[in-house]
């Protein structure tokens, strides 16, 4: 999928979880549910959950990833995951 998605998602911009999204931790990571779109998403590990939850506290998604211990080698995978979440309106850019 996601070369296009990744291109539309800017790691250096500030992001946050959408107001209509609920996050439920699960043994495998977390479930996200968007009450507006009625769509469900899965976060497949605890690190991506930590990144998503801390987005609002960081000046950029890149900084949230670094703070959660994402290595430069792993960063593209996290960028793709975040791009998918942005594409489904689970996260949105902060003004």
């Amino acid at each position, binding site marked *: 999928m996601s070369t296009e998605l990744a291109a539309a998602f800017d790691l250096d911009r500030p992001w946050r979880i959408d107001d209509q999204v609920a996050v439920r931790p699960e043994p495998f990571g977390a479930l996200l549910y968007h009450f507006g779109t*009625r769509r469900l998403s899965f976060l497949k590990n605890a690190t991506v959950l930590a990144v998503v939850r801390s987005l609002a506290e960081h000046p950029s998604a890149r900084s949230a990833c670094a703070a959660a211990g994402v290595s430069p080698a792993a960063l593209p995978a996290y960028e793709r995951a975040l791009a998918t979440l942005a594409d489904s309106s689970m996260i949105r850019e902060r003004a």
Partner: protein
Amino acid sequence: MSARPATLVEQFERGLAAPICLTWELTYACNLACVHCLSSSGRRDPRELSTAECQEVIDTLERMQVFYVNIGGGEPTVRPDFWDLVDYATAHHVGVKFSTNGIRIDRAVARRLAGSDYIDVQISLDGATADVNDAVRGAGSYATALRAMAHLSAAGFSGFKLSVVVTRHNVSQLDEFKALADAHGAQLRLTRLRPSGRGADTWPQLHPLPEQQRVLYDWLTAHGEQVLTGDSFFHLAPYGGPLPGLNLCGAGRVVCLIDPVGDVYACPFAIHENFLAGSVRGPGGFAAVWRDSPLFAELRAPQSGGACRSCGFYDSCRGGCMAAKFFTGLPLDGPDPECVQGYGTEALLAAGSAAGRGDVPRPAPDHSHRGPVRGQPVPVTIGARPAAPRPPSRACDENPLTGFAAG
């Protein structure tokens, strides 16, 4: 055990902290008497949960972060406190999707529903024409559903669901259903007919024939995510790959049912004591049942795959639907009765001898109306027979070439 990290599906098979998809049937009372009703609904059960008890359940769901409930019945809107309970749930961050035959969806209700992001509506319709629909749902039920859809559409409720159980008689109408949904700004949802409830008696005459299953699969594949399926057709995956969705049996793992009297079953299609996990009226309420029920622990443990393990398609169909097997008298660790490889047909033949001995489990409890119901469909089977032994397997009804369909 290998060190390979578990896939998402494997994680789901071990169970979640709370259900993703919780069905809550609020009442067994219903104005209709559909011949395939999965919960054998009709009469209200006097032990039905009170308003206060329902509110307690909602409080629990909020604490467990159950994002939304699928409310059904019976016909849930005939409960006098129905709209209050919907408001209570949404005020407590539990979204509501409710299934209805449309009887109470008038203009005012439709306007009110259209105003909330947290409410979704699912109108049940089992024929794209009145003759096909009313034959299973009862005279006038097509008109009622269409009127409700018109009200929702006029109120600007976009994306409500048109929910269809696929049968032998409506499988040729898939394009018409889609057009009907599109014309009302609705989304089509197709689900599988199970031999549950009164469906146990009518399934042999109503379930799609093997060649129709192939048509259905191709149609679903062509329409992708535009059409919802409630993840109910994963037994068709061996035709050529998974359909959108989780593609696993979620019973006790990601789904379960709370029935009108508070009993918790592993899945909405398995209302039988063998799948009864506990009651929301028990100590610890629903949360304790979900977390601690021995039945759910068993369903979340690794499954053997049984007779299906040696089949090359086991990884795609996962053995099919537990309820479909159970209520056709098949072993739970064997093939689905509608296995597209044809193994279900063979198994049904073998189970035919069990049926002859009366060993096929009967769905219970039964809240069917005892007397006649206005507009009641003419039974498609000849002679209702609650206690009589099931006739031998209908394997002879199946296409003899079914075993060669995989190609």
